[in-house]
């Protein structure tokens, strides 16, 4: 036998108590993990390779207002601009009752890989997409979910635009931050709308990162005081704009997380202290045998740490396992497409567990140290 076995045996002696205590830690950490994951998904736009060279240009009034197609030439002329493509959110429905489903975008087919280079797509599929004006590309996630095959006909009913799109699936891409979207030829939308001469947004690829601020300035200046003023911004701040629109909800979840952590600390501390308080008689025996306060404190700490660790394993590990196996995207109608428990989040959960074990060890350590050998034995005889 050694100290470790003694501690382990001691921790699990009252199995029900130990299990319940660990379980209450686990529940709280599971909740914390879930909230942090949700918060991250709501507040942090996923990092994306190539995003730093991309500029999104939208109507200054709001994203819901279109831009004239004739702006393209003006943007193309700005020094530093490599490529310009329209990108129009079609906002249609693929199937009824499909929640949010997936988004459809019209763009310049030839420039897809040039601008959104991170998309992985077999070259022959990209060629097929470019050749057929009715062709479309779908992300692998959506293709899998709806059982789409290359060559399938895909009909999207217009939600914003008064027309339906009858498309043919030419390729399936993967490896972007969101492998769910559908891309089709902007020209096809133009035709369906009777050559209306409008686009949703412009997406600009800049030649080098240093030129990005200058290009943004130039684009904004070009259309200032015209009938269609624009707002050009980096892809990241474009996405952050969406998050800011969610308003107080994100702050609210943040507050909830802190409340949960606080109460978790309170509840766990009191249960763990309770568990250890039951063992004062033994602590007195150990003291009589010659164990010092430091060693007794170490026993208590080790015990509370083990209870916390078991809770963390169950709560954080369980959360990670659950969310990696379960399709949260489906359960929340696409509001949380990823719901990934990142190492940072798992780390935060474990960190909280460690802090908890420290906090809950303090009160029993204090009372154990104040306990004299004789009193300890007396009170329990």
């Amino acid at each position, binding site marked *: 036998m050694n100290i470790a076995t003694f501690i382990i045996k001691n921790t699990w002696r009252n199995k*029900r*108590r130990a299990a*319940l*205590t660990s*379980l*209450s830690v686990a*529940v*709280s950490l*599971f*909740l914390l993990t*879930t909230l942090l994951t*949700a918060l991250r998904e709501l507040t942090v736009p996923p990092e994306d390779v190539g995003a730093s060279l991309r500029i999104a240009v939208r109507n*200054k*009034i*709001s*994203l*819901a*207002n279109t831009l004239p197609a004739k702006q393209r030439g003006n943007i193309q002329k700005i020094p530093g601009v490599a490529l310009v493509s329209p990108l129009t959110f079609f*906002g249609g*429905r693929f199937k009824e009752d499909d929640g*949010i489903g997936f988004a459809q975008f019209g763009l310049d087919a030839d420039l897809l890989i040039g601008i959104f280079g991170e998309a992985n797509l077999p070259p022959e599929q990209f060629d097929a997409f470019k050749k057929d004006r009715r062709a479309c590309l779908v992300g692998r996630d959506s293709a899998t979910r709806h059982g789409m095959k290359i060559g399938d006909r895909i009909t999207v*009913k*217009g*939600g*914003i*635009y*008064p027309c*339906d799109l009858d498309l043919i699936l030419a390729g399936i891409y993967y490896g972007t931050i969101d492998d769910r979207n559908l891309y089709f030829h902007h020209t096809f939308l133009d035709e369906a709308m009777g050559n209306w001469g409008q686009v949703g947004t412009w997406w600009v690829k800049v030649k080098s990162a240093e030129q990005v601020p200058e290009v943004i300035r130039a684009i904004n200046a070009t259309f200032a*005081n*015209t*009938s*269609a*003023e624009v*707002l050009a911004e980096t892809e990241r701040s474009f996405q952050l*704009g969406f998050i*800011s*629109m*969610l*308003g*107080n*909800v994100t702050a*609210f*979840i943040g507050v*909830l997380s802190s*409340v*949960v952590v606080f*109460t*978790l600390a*309170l*509840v766990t501390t*009191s*249960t763990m202290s*309770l*568990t250890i308080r*039951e063992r004062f008689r033994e602590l007195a025996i150990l003291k009589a045998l010659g164990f010092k306060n430091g060693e007794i404190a170490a026993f208590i700490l080790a015990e509370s740490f083990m209870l916390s660790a078991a809770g963390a394993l169950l709560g954080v590990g369980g959360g990670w396992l659950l969310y990696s196996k379960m399709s949260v995207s489906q359960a*929340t*109608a696409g*509001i949380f497409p990823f719901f990934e428990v990142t190492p940072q989040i798992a780390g935060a959960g474990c960190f909280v567990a460690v802090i908890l074990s420290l906090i809950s060890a303090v009160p029993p350590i204090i009372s154990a140290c104040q306990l004299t050998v004789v009193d300890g034995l007396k009170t*329990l005889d």
Partner: protein
Amino acid sequence: MLPPLKYHLQTVRVRWRSTLATLASIALVVMVYLLVQSLAAGLDAIATQTGDMRNLMVLRRGSIAESSSLLTIDQIRTAKHLQGIAKDKSGAPLASVDTLVVVNHQRRDGKSMANVLFRGISQAGIELRQQVQLVEGRWFAPGRREAVASTKLRDRMAGMEIGNEIKIGADKLKIVGLMDGQGSAFDSELWLDSEEAKGLFNRDFYSSVLLRLEDGADQKSLISRLDTDKRLQVRGILETDYYREQTKTAGPIRFLGNFLAAVMSVGAVVASTNSMYAFMGKRTREIGTLRVLGFRRRTILAGLLFEGVCIGFCGGLIGCVLALPVHGLSTGTMAFESFTEVVFHFQITLTLVARAMAFAVFAGLTGSLLPALRATRMPVVDALKSA
């Protein structure tokens, strides 16, 4: 024979330290449940408090929301002159042709932006929406680049006080009045003249038409005539029904609330079971004594469960009191239908409180059930012997 109630109440009071964790965890669950559900209730309230039963809204067929609907002047003219539409004094159909524009506007904090719904309406639009009252200034005059904002919008957005001008491209829109939508969706809107909105924002189309139905008009057949007309390509819906369907935003919030409450309640029950076990362990001898004195097992059990119920009830009350201050606070979030910010209030309804309290009592009961059963099942002699 029942052990006196006072004994149990006294016990709950004396053991406050070990009760604290249970109390806190139940209070927390109740509080979080109420907070989140009051958000959803606030959004729901907008959906049920907006619209007039006598109004019919006409949208482009297939469009999900008013803000993404596009109507031509021909479609509008046909819809306006259908049988069953009420007429004003001059004999023209009582209708408002609306142009909705989503405008990215700065919040009051000066840092972030939010989408605001600018609603262009016809003069009749004010009369058709009786729940909207002018509270300050005057209504806008068509052709003079004027607008009326809701008071709640003014509280959240920058530069919406009376006399302020909002810059739109090269033009300016002057705020001349403030309105109150009395908890309806209109509390998140800014109103101006419809034709002016079309001009200011370079719109070729209108968004929707709101029609007043004649008293006793056959709503159903009117709607089905609109919906089935192949040439017209529009759909009709009662204004009240339209807003009731706008529940996409409240859905995820309600889901979040239920999810949090479910997971946390497991935690609360575990915590309360745990502290009850510890406490019952200390009381085994006491319970044995009660039984020797002649109290029946069932009555002791009932008494112990009563203690659990008391704790649950107190925890629930504390949770309600903690959540109560948010009631009536106004907040905003992006509505998923229109991508614009809706302003709404946290609403702690009686139903929510009742549900939360029922839950709290249930959690207290569940938490004490197993320990109480164990304590009362022990043979009297063993119970007396135990330390």
